[in-house]
């Protein structure tokens, strides 16, 4: 059963077709990788899922509910969380606050006027946030400014901010870009561990090790269209993929 169902999505930017009749079904509980050369439309597609962009035509259905024309915060409240290509965190706040904030959003909804209680009196939020920080290996830095973290740690923090919400669908836009080999491996480990919780994930990635280690299904995009889809082994051997994506070289 598809938790995310994308049908015939098109998006033009001033005459340039960024997405062309994209169809995509993401199975619940699976890790679905989207790969493709730069400018293939991967990030544009992701933006259509979270309400940053509105497709010109087509439909995006999540859990039986259309995601088109509703606000980003409503999409998140429906259970979609996103990790960005450049980490989007609260640089002025401490790590623990960075994680508490999404936890409050999950618990209290999109708006709640709680002016009077002390933030640290909400023990269950604090405990949950600390547990997730522990999970991603940032527990000992929890009182540091998020802005002073290394790039790899920022990505991990952003992941923690998504995980604390227990999303139904997690969108990861190049979660290992710019990371060292060791950091990349650590991230793969982490993603595999959270895979066990059954969170559906869509991963955009250039690092093929990451893709082939994690993904159950791979969609290949080129020039705004999905040109191939299948299990990793099938994709590896697909000549059209090698043509479009690798210019004929072997994987």
């Amino acid at each position, binding site marked *: 059963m598809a938790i995310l169902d994308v049908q015939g999505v098109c998006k033009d930017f001033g005459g340039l077709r960024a997405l062309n009749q994209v169809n995509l079904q993401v199975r619940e509980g699976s890790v679905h990788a989207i790969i493709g050369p730069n400018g293939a439309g991967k990030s544009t597609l992701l933006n259509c899922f979270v309400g940053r962009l509105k497709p010109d035509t087509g439909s995006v259905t999540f859990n039986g509910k259309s995601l088109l024309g509703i606000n980003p915060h409503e999409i998140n409240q429906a259970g979609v969380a996103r990790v960005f290509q450049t980490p989007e965190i609260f640089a002025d706040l401490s790590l623990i606050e960075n994680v508490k904030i999404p936890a409050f959003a999950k618990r209290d*909804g999109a708006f709640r006027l709680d002016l009077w209680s002390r933030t640290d009196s909400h023990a269950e939020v604090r405990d949950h946030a600390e547990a997730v920080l522990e999970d991603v290996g940032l527990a000992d830095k929890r009182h540091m400014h998020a802005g002073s973290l290394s790039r790899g740690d920022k990505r991990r923090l952003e992941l923690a901010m998504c995980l604390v919400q227990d999303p139904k669908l997690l969108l990861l836009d190049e979660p290992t870009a710019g990371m060292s080999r060791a950091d990349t491996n650590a991230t793969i480990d982490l993603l595999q561990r959270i895979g066990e919780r059954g969170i559906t994930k869509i991963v955009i990635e250039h690092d093929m090790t990451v893709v082939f280690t994690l993904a159950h299904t791979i969609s290949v995009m080129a020039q705004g269209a999905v040109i191939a889809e299948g299990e990793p082994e099938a994709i590896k051997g697909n000549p059209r993929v090698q043509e479009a994506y690798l210019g004929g070289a072997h994987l």
Partner: protein
Amino acid sequence: MSAATVDTLRRGNAAASVPAGDTASSRSDHIKFAVFAIAVLTMPVWLSPIGAGYPDLVQKFAIFGIFAIGFNILFGLTGYLSFGHAAFLGVGSYAAVWSFKLLTMNVVPAMIFGVLASGVFALLIGYVSLRRTGIYFSILTLAFAQMSYNLAYSVLTPITNGETGLQLALHDPRVLDGPAEAGLPTTTLFGMETIGYPGFYVCAVMLIVAYYVAMRITRSPFGMTLRAIKSNQNRMNYTGFNTRPYTLAAFVISGMYAGLAGSLMAVVDPLAGAERMQWTASGEVVLMTILGGTGTLLGPVLGAGIIKYFENIFSAFNDQVLGRIFDFLPEVLQNLMVTLVHPFVGEGWHLTLGVVFMLIVIFLPGGVMEGIGRISARISRSRSNRSS
């Protein structure tokens, strides 16, 4: 707005490297609050050695302290820079004076009406202005404040009494007080006159309440949410927050603070004029907040106090006073010093204000509070060096 503020904050907190809202324990907050309350109530005592202990001035410290605390709830927490906050100050004053004219000279209903009126006004202006961010927001608030100011002088004269300002009159109904005796009545707190020092104590208690409420807000999930909006509004949307009602709530609360300050102005001196709404008055509260330390609890109060002190004491300096100050110097030097200092005092105190303000923004973006933080960090470092 955020990238540089980050730098500021990081520099400001370099010593502790811990954000303010996070670790401060409930206990240390309450100790600070108690110290603050005592300091405020005893202002007439400890400020008299520097010539600032008289009622007129300590009243101003308290009133503008409230104004600045409220402004900081918007600007310090959410980063939205309003250039129209004086409008709410003015609305609070008008509402309070009307309460004195129509209902009673008791200050409690006057303050309630002042706060409510400015709250409603802030809700309207905020609803429209907060649809935009950045400088567009600033200009929208400025536009609304200027409209209010201009209208107060023209078509709204029946409510504002135009250039003369709204004043008490003998024939005012004052339905709750009954007919006035001879002469204009004074403001009261359930029968006790509230001018002079009693007036100050009304303001001081309100300042303490205002500080306490601001402290609770800062430490609450709401306050943390506001700081997160300042830090990265984009992330907030993808984190499931509807940010508009949060910023609107902050705007309204901050407008109500301004309304309270405005009504207290009417409490200590029952008249209201449109000049309170001019954009320069909005600019002044920005200066106070920055000078003291944006985003801190105490900073805005300090900033308000410093500016009002300069305004009242500094501007009274003249050449004779200066001559006495530099009396210890040889006459040539004395005259030289008087000539050099002259443009900065008396009529020229605004020049000093401008210079000090520029220096603060350039070198000490965290304001006086950052300065205090740096100094105390240095002291504790040298102390720990000595002990090791």
